[in-house]
C-alpha cells in the first residue's frame, strides 16, 4: 500500500514535470513554427526542383531546370530591377518623411499633436487593397482627382514613365505613418542631458540634429530600413490592383512575378524557384545592412 502511494506520487510528479507551462508553451511554439514556417520553406525549396502544379497533381522532378530558366529569363531581371527602384525610393521617402514629421510633432511648433499623430497613422492601418483602389481612381486621367487638382494631363498608371512613380507615391502615402510613430518613440527616449550639454557648448540646431539626434536614432533607422526593405521586396498587392504589372511589363516586381507564375499560370515550380531566390536575396541584403551599420545588437 505504501509502495503504491510512492509510485503514484512519483508518477504524478513525473507527469507534472513533463507538462509544465514552460514545456507546453515551447512545444506549442516549436509545432507552430514547424507547421507554418519550416514546412512551407522546405516545401517551396522542394517544389522549386519540380514541375509542380498542386491543382492537377503534377509533381515531376526537373532538378535545377527552373533555376536555369528564371536566371536566363529577361522578365525575371526586369522584375528585379523594378523591385530595386520601388524598394529604394519607397524606403528613402518613408524614412525621410517619417523622420521629418516626427521631428515636427516632437517640437513646440505644432499644436494638436495627438490628432495629427492619429491622422498620420491612419493610412497605415487602412487595408492596402482598399487604398490601392482609391488611388487607382484618383490617378484616372479623365475623372481622377490628381490630374484635376494639379492641372496635369498624365495617364499615370498606363504610361510606362509614370506608372512606377505613381505606385511609389501611393505606397509612401500609406506607409510614412509607421516610420513617424517609430521615430516619435525613438525621439522621446533620447537622453535630455546630451542635448543640454550641446546647448551649453553652443551647438546650433543643425549641428544638434546631425551630430546627436541622427546618430542616436541609428537603431530606429536601421529597424525601419530593414523592415521596409523586407516588406517592399514582397510587395505585389498594389501592383495587382493598380497596374497588373503594366503597361507591358514595366511595373512587374519580383513578388508580382511570383504571384503571376503561381496563381495565373499555375506554374508553382518556377514560382517556388523565384521565391527561393528572393529569400536568399533578402537574407543577403539584410546581412549587408547589418554589416554597413555595424550595429547588429541594436536590433536584438
Amino acid at each position, binding site marked *: 500500500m505504501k509502495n503504491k502511494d510512492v509510485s503514484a506520487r512519483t508518477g504524478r510528479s513525473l507527469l507534472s514535470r513533463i507538462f509544465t507551462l514552460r514545456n507546453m508553451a515551447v512545444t506549442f511554439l516549436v509545432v507552430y513554427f514547424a507547421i507554418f514556417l519550416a514546412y512551407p520553406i522546405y516545401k517551396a525549396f522542394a517544389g522549386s526542383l519540380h514541375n509542380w502544379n498542386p491543382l*492537377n497533381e503534377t509533381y515531376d522532378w526537373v532538378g535545377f531546370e527552373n533555376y536555369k530558366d528564371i536566371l536566363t*529569363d529577361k522578365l525575371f531581371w526586369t522584375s528585379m530591377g523594378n523591385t530595386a527602384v520601388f524598394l529604394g525610393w519607397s524606403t528613402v521617402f518613408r524614412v525621410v518623411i517619417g523622420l521629418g514629421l516626427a521631428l515636427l510633432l516632437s517640437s513646440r511648433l505644432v499644436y494638436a499633436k495627438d490628432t495629427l499623430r492619429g491622422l498620420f497613422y491612419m493610412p497605415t492601418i487602412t487595408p492596402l487593397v482598399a487604398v490601392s483602389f482609391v488611388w487607382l481612381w484618383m490617378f484616372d486621367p*479623365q475623372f481622377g482627382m490628381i490630374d484635376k487638382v494639379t492641372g496635369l494631363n498624365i495617364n499615370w498608371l498606363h504610361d510606362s514613365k509614370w506608372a512606377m512613380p505613381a505606385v511609389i507615391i501611393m505606397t509612401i502615402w500609406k506607409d510614412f505613418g509607421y516610420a513617424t510613430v517609430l521615430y516619435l518613440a525613438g525621439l522621446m527616449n533620447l537622453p535630455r542631458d546630451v542635448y543640454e550639454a550641446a546647448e551649453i557648448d553652443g551647438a546650433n540646431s543643425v549641428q544638434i540634429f546631425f551630430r546627436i539626434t541622427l546618430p542616436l536614432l541609428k537603431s530606429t533607422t536601421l529597424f525601419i530600413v530593414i523592415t521596409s526593405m523586407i516588406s517592399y521586396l514582397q510587395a505585389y498587392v498594389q501592383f495587382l490592383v493598380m497596374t497588373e504589372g*503594366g503597361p507591358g511589363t514595366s511595373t512587374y516586381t519580383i513578388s508580382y512575378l511570383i504571384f503571376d507564375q503561381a496563381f495565373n499560370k*499555375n506554374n508553382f515550380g518556377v514560382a517556388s524557384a523565384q521565391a527561393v531566390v528572393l529569400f536568399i536575396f533578402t537574407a543577403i541584403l539584410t546581412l549587408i545592412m547589418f554589416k554597413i551599420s555595424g550595429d547588429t545588437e541594436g536590433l536584438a
Partner: protein
Amino acid sequence: MQFKKIATATIATAGILAMLGACGSGSQGVTDTKKDKGLDVIGTNVKYDPNHLVNEGKPITIDYWTWSDKGVDPVYQLSEDYHKIYPNVTIKIKKQTWDDYWTKLPLQLKGKNGPAVFNIHNSYDSLIRPYAADYDIDQAQLEADYPSSAAHEDANGKVKYIDSVINTGNIYYNKTMWKEAGLTDADIPTTWDQFIDVAKKLTKFDGDKMTQAGFNFNGAYSAIYQGLNYQKGTLLFKDDGKQANYDNDTTKENMQFLKDMYEKDKIGSVNFGNDYSESFGQGQTAMVYAWGWLEGTMKDKYPNVDYGVFATPTFSTDTPFAYDRYNGESTPGVNKNQSKEQQAVAQDFVKYLLANDDYIRQAVKGLNSFPAKANLQNDADILKSPVMKAIQPRVSRLIWPGATPATVESSGKVAFEDATQNGKSIDEAVAEGQKAMDKDMKGSDFVSAESKYEFFSEHK
C-alpha cells in the same frame, strides 16, 4: 441531488446527439414511391422521361458547387424544379467566390466527399478534367441538339461537359451620341473602313484634348486581335495545335491596324478611358467592342445609358473564314470520385437539364449569351434581345479555339502595350509575345479545338 445531475447530463447528451444526428444524416427525407409522374417526355433529340424513380425512390442529398448567383446560374431554378418531380432528391447548392472556387474545387474533387455536380468554366478544363465523369448520354443525340458539343469530345468520343450558351464580341454604341452626330440606323457599318468613318464623326476634341472617343478598345486588345486574325483566316495555334501562332504577318498587320485607329485616325487613344467598359458606361466613349457580359454591367451599373448593339465589322463584304472567336458557358460536370448512387443521380439530373429548354432559356437570360441548343437558335423570344439578334446570323461562322491557356491573352496584352506604350517596334513586341507564349505553354497538355471547326479547311 445525484439523480438530478445524472438526469440533466443524460438529457443534455441526448439533445446534442439528436442535433448532431439531424445535421449529419444524409438518408433522412421523403421516400418517393410514385414512378408514374404523369409528365410528358421532354427534349428534341436528347430525351428525358421523368416517369421513373431516382435512387429507387430512397432519400438522397447531392451537392452542387457554383460561383454564380441565383438569376445567373440556371441550375438554382432547375434544381428546385427537379426536386418537385423527385421529392426524395435534394440538391444542396454551395456558392463560393470565383477565386476560392478554383482553389477548393480541384482539391475537393480529389477525395470522396467532393460535390456530385459542379459548375464548370472551360478555362479551367485541365484542373477538373481528371475528376469529371463522361456524360451518360448518346453522343449523336447530343450533337443533334448541341452542334458545338463535337468540339468537346475527347479521343474516345465522349464529353465531360458541353456549351449551354455561347458568346462572342459585338459593337455596343451609345444611341444618344449617335443621334447627336447626325447618324441613323442606315449608318451602321458592316466593314472596318465604314466603321472608322463613323467613329471619326463620333469623336470630339477640345483643342488637342480628346473629350469623347469614337471607339475605345483599351483593355480589350487580346479579345479583339483574336477575332481580327480569324477574319483573315489565320489560326491562333500552329498545325500541331499545341503551339501559339502569334508571331505572324496577320498579327502584325492587325496590330498596326488597331494602332492606326488611335494614332492616325484619332478615333480613340491609349490615354483616354483606361477601361473601355467603364468609359462607355460613363458616357465618354461612343463605341466599344465587348462580349455579352457588358449587357449585365450596363444594367447593374449604368441603367440610364441608351445603347444599341451591332455585329462586329469585317474587312470586306465577303464571308470571312470566321467572324470571331466564341466561347461557351459550360454545362455542369459529374464527379467521378463520388459514390455510384450519387453519380447516378447526378447523371440523371444532367440529362434532365440538357433535354430541358427552360435550362437554356434561363442561361440565355442570366448570362446574356446565345443558345447553343439548335432548336432555340431561331426562337423569336430569344431574338428580341439586340445581342442575340447580332450574333444569330454569324453563329455558324464562329470558331472555338478550345480552352486556351491564359498566356495567349495575357502575353498578347503585354505585346500590344509594348508596341503602343513602351516604344517597342511591332516586330519586336510580337516576337517577344510569341516567346512568352511558347515558354508558358511548354509542358502544357493543351490541344487546340480549331481543327473541329466546320470551315477549318478554309484557313490560310
